């Protein structure tokens, strides 16, 4: 046995195809599977590592385009080998492969002494190849539906989209697990088969896996060379036909990728609404004065700026609110003052409660209005509408029985009727001597006399009045 001899298995074109397929399949598997399990923290961190879900989807699409182009190239490549080079279609499965599989199983179980004598492609390799073909078709069709849902639902019921999503996901799972079991075992674990990278298989490998082909080669079954004129004739037919087919398939890919714009890039606002619209009328922050309001009118929380009391409560709105006229809270809008009226500011004396209840402010009166006089009626003093009144206390105050004679204002001031008298008593100096037998005070205390003269304002007083205020010392 020639240990150093190696046998050609894969041309450089197939080896490149394998690399392209490996890369795109791995990328598709990673970027696809992570999209199915986003609830896992591990998967989420992978998506993050790849640059986010939009990048993951972009990578998935790019890898899908690469796989589609690779598929087209593979079809053209196989076409050239079959139609131009007239190679045997050694990858086609046959009844012999089923027989080989069964024999392999029987041999493994010890039911058969001989291993199957397999040819250029073993049944394991054929199963893998056709699994890839099946997977690529299923993933391509369902992938198209997911990529172009509007185009799909123009032709098919909408439920095909979620069905495609389920199929795409489960088929992907099947493909990945099948690769891990079947491919991983047969070319990496059982024996690391490097022929897809080097293109060559050793004598030992050929004997182990492809004994039938090895025997054929050793028997000198060299394929006859094709004469150059035949070859160029075949090429003249093949290239235009193949070119047309490739052009059609590339157009298909172009439509696959760019046929529809499924969704717009920026989602429209969920709601068109003006955010700030003040409620009308707007309630005031501070509780405004209570107002009776016009009868029957429901103003809600609205408060009339002018307190509507007294005659204003029953007034018609239109009395003040003349259309087309800006309203101020001036009284003169409605009320005309008499020509000789006192003062310019209505509100100094008048309240909206009643016009007739007008009162001069206490500090505006020529004579200070204090005590009970503050609330007394004007008429009490201004009898008959006199501008300068006689101060006639008896208009309001009745002199009690047994009251001392004389003018009221000898003792009383407007400060308070009772209060003012005791105030005076306290001020009056006490009598330092006996009064028994001394009947006439003014005999000694003549205002014009020498002995403790009474003050000059006491001139008109009578003796009985002196002891009202002046008391004897005890």
């Amino acid at each position, binding site marked *: 046995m020639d240990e150093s001899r190696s046998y050609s298995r894969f041309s450089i074109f197939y080896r490149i195809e394998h690399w392209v397929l490996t890369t795109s399949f791995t990328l598709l598997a990673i970027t696809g599977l992570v999209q199915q399990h986003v609830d896992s923290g591990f998967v989420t961190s992978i998506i993050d590592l790849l640059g986010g879900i939009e990048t993951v989807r972009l990578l998935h699409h790019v890898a899908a385009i690469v796989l589609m182009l690779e598929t087209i190239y593979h079809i053209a490549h196989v076409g050239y080998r079959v139609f131009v080079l007239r190679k045997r279609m050694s990858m086609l499965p046959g009844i012999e492969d089923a027989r080989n599989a069964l024999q392999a199983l029987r041999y493994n179980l010890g039911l058969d002494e001989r291993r199957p004598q397999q040819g250029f492609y073993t049944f394991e390799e054929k199963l893998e190849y056709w699994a890839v073909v099946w997977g690529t078709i299923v993933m391509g069709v369902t992938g198209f539906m997911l990529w172009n849902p509007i185009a799909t639902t123009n032709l098919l019921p909408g439920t095909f989209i979620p069905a495609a999503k389920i199929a795409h996901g489960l088929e992907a799972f099947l493909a990945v697990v099948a690769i891990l079991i079947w491919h991983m075992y047969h070319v990496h674990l059982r024996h690391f088969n490097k022929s897809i990278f080097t293109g060559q298989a050793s004598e030992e490998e050929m004997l182990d896996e492809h004994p039938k082909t090895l025997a054929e080669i050793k028997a000198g079954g060299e394929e006859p060379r094709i004469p150059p004129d035949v070859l160029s004739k075949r090429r003249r037919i093949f290239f235009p036909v193949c070119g047309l087919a490739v052009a059609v398939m590339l157009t298909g890919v172009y439509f696959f990728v760019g046929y529809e714009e499924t969704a717009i890039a920026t989602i429209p606002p969920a*709601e068109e609404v003006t955010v700030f619209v003040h409620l009308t009328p707007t309630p005031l922050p501070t509780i405004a004065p209570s107002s009776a309001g016009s009868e029957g009118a429901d103003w809600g929380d609205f408060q009339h700026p002018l307190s509507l009391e007294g005659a204003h409560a029953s007034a018609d709105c239109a009395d003040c609110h003349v259309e087309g006229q800006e309203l101020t809270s001036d009284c003169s809008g409605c009320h005309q003052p008499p020509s000789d009226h006192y003062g310019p500011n209505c509100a100094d004396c008048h309240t909206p409660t009643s016009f007739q209840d007008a009162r001069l402010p206490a500090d505006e009166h020529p004579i200070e209005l204090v005590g009970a006089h503050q609330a007394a009626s004007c008429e009490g003093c201004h009898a008959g509408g006199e501008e300068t009144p006689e101060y006639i206390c008896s208009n309001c105050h009745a002199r009690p029985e047994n009251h001392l004679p004389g003018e009221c204002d000898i003792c009383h001031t407007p400060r308070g009727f009772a209060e003012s008298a005791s105030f005076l008593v306290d001020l009056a100096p006490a009598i330092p001597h006996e009064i028994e037998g001394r009947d006439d005070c003014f005999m000694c205390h003549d205002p014009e006399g020498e002995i403790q003269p009474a003050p000059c304002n006491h001139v008109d007083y009578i003796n009985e009045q002196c002891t009202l205020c002046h008391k004897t010392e005890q």
Partner: protein
Amino acid sequence: MIVPKRMIIVMLSLSFVFVIWAVAGAGSVLAQEADNGVCLACHGQPGLQTTLPSGEILYLTVDPEVFEASVHGLEGFLCVHCHSDIDGYPHPPLTVETRRELSLSLYRSSCILCHEDKYDETLDSVHAVALAGGDDRAAICTDCHGSHNISPPTEPRSRSSQMCELCHSEIFERYKQSVHGAALIGEGNPDVPSCIDCHHVHCIEGPLTCPFHLFSPQTCANCHADAELMAKYGISTDVFDTYVADFHGTTVVLFEKLAPDQETNKPVCIDCHGVHDMKQVDDPESAVMKENLLATCQKCHPDATTDFPTSWLGHYPPDAEHAPLVFFVRLFYLIFIPAVLGVMVVFVATDVRKRFLGRSKEPQHG
């Protein structure tokens, strides 16, 4: 007599403490003096008002009964606790031009005294941002809670939403027509969300931000994934899970986790169901009603045609009844996958047994 150094320190400390105590005591006496009766003698009179430089009328009357019934009145708070610049009569002259300026200056100096935590929360709110940006219409404490008439904000539950209405009346009108709003305002339903259940209370987020949009399904799920609550109304709790399981929801969940500040063109609940005006799904006006669904899809998928909306399974899990095609495709793979993998495993396992576990009767090649 020699006084020990330590004694001097102790005496100095004691006198310092006494001075502090005396000053603090004097302060509280002043505060006690400004009894509410003193203020209300004038401010309890109806019709008390003044005109501000802007021409606005500033109403100065406080209804004593209203204040007494407010949360602060019931607790015995004093006028001067909030109006801390007032220490007698005449009052310091008003320096504000408008009523709004007065409210803004008062709430900044008063509410924070007792409610600092809530005040701080508001600083992150969309209102505080607007206010800082110069929009003085933005709501402050007193706009929602009132001032002299503050009552507990949840009595009744619809009260807080009606406070929002003051400034957001157009939105409130829409909300009032919605399945949620009608139940809250009309029936006083305790289960439906009021404004603050989705927008939060003091730290009100801007609802047009990316994070708010992305996380809004979680807000909906708070109630719609609550089995006990939904059972009362016969509403499915699958809505959130079926949303997340689909393309739109999957994407949104990933954006939530990985890029909450980035915009996505995938819709959340409100993009299909409506925001403030969401209707019951069997309401003829509902945006997700079968007859209206195509128009709703077309908001984002302008080219969509009649059959497009049925690609969404309507929050139903794909069972034989609602989506037979989906159900049977899944069933096919649930049989097909174990079958294929099973055959592969049998071949590989027997090969391993023969080749590596020495069960071969035949000598190895090579």
